[in-house]
């Protein structure tokens, strides 16, 4: 009788455990989050730097179509980076701040895409205006996550040629 009740209790426990919702992926601490994101950003930032090498000289020589090719590649890399970053669970206490940051980052992808299009169309002045916006928006993005101490995930103009 006792063993029957123990088996029943065990079964009930197993059933309860099985019925319980799977625990949500634990939110990382800020340090863990930064480490994880830096791991994503580092190879992409270095790849961007390699891709954009010489873009400044091409703009200087008015070879805007050649510069556009480099910007297109950089846009692809950056778009992929932001997507991968967005998939990482965020620390609970920083959700609002990071939400704002990602708004800026997505705007950066749009800016890069537009610069590429304007360069391809040989619209130098429009590309120039968008570049001003790109730099300004990048600085705003950096200010939002200043306390995180990002390196590769922060905006650095020097990476773009």
């Amino acid at each position: 009788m006792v063993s029957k009740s123990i088996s029943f209790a065990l079964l009930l426990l197993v059933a309860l455990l099985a019925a319980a919702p799977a625990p949500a992926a634990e939110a990382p601490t800020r340090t863990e989050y930064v480490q994880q994101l830096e791991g994503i950003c580092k190879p992409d930032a270095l790849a961007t730097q390699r891709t954009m090498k010489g873009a400044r000289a091409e703009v200087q020589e008015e070879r805007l179509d050649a510069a556009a090719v480099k910007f297109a590649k950089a846009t692809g890399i950056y778009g992929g980076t932001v997507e991968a970053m967005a998939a990482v669970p965020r620390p609970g206490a920083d959700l609002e701040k990071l939400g704002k940051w990602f708004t800026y980052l997505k705007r950066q992808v749009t800016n890069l895409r537009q610069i590429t299009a304007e360069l391809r169309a040989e619209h130098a002045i429009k590309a120039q205006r968008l570049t001003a916006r790109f730099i300004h928006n990048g600085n705003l993005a950096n200010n939002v996550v200043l306390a995180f101490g990002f390196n590769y995930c922060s905006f650095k103009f020097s990476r773009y040629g």
Partner: protein
Amino acid sequence: MSVRGTPRRLWAAAFAFLLAAAVTAVLAGSARGERAQHGDLILSLDGGLSPLALPRDHPAPVSLRLSGGLQTTDETPVPRVTRVELGLPGQGVLDVRGLPTCLPRQLRNTTPAGSLKACRSALVGHGKIDAEVRLPNQEPFRIKADLRAFNSRIDGRKAIILHAFSPDPPSVIVLPFVLRLHAGRFKTRLIANLPPSLGPWPHFTHFEVHLFRRYRYRGRERSYIRASCPIPKKFSAGFFSFAHASFLLDDGREIGTGIARSCRARN
């Protein structure tokens, strides 16, 4: 053709004005300075050239402003800086031909008036510096000092000597920045080593320096700093990495940040 009785040309002009204002606002926004955080330390850097409109193909006289600072996130003391390196881009030219020089020993223990008496002809700029002083058994306090920059030559190299004077408490420092040329984006580097003998000054929290000097040499008007805006004809403005500052701290950390600025083509 008009819109509600207003000539289209006028609307176009108004639109162009608004667009120009928007672009100016964007550029002005970025001119507030950039910040970077490394651990508990925040480093800020700002600066620019004046005028913004420069010739595309030859350098013209400009003034250069550079400011920056260090602060901690938790109000703990700012660490001692042992070395400062300021990088400036290649399109700037530092011209010292015919400009008198001043030696550090001429400025030691001088008041601002005394420094000018000794080296006025070598004056190339001015500024301000704030430092944090923490002495044992005393409340920490800040000192603010006026800076003067003088053209110099140290061990055969171009140099700038900063002379800082604080009236309260009275103190003077003389800090030489030696100029070195490097390959890469920041071709001109101004480097200063800050020995422990400088006392509380290396715990600086903010600095601001303006470099500008026009002078005549052999009948020709010259400028201490000249710069161009080497952009193609298709563009009216360009963007460049303007400056990079890096600080070596006494705990072995090295922190740095860079800023990008724009210039406009004058012709």
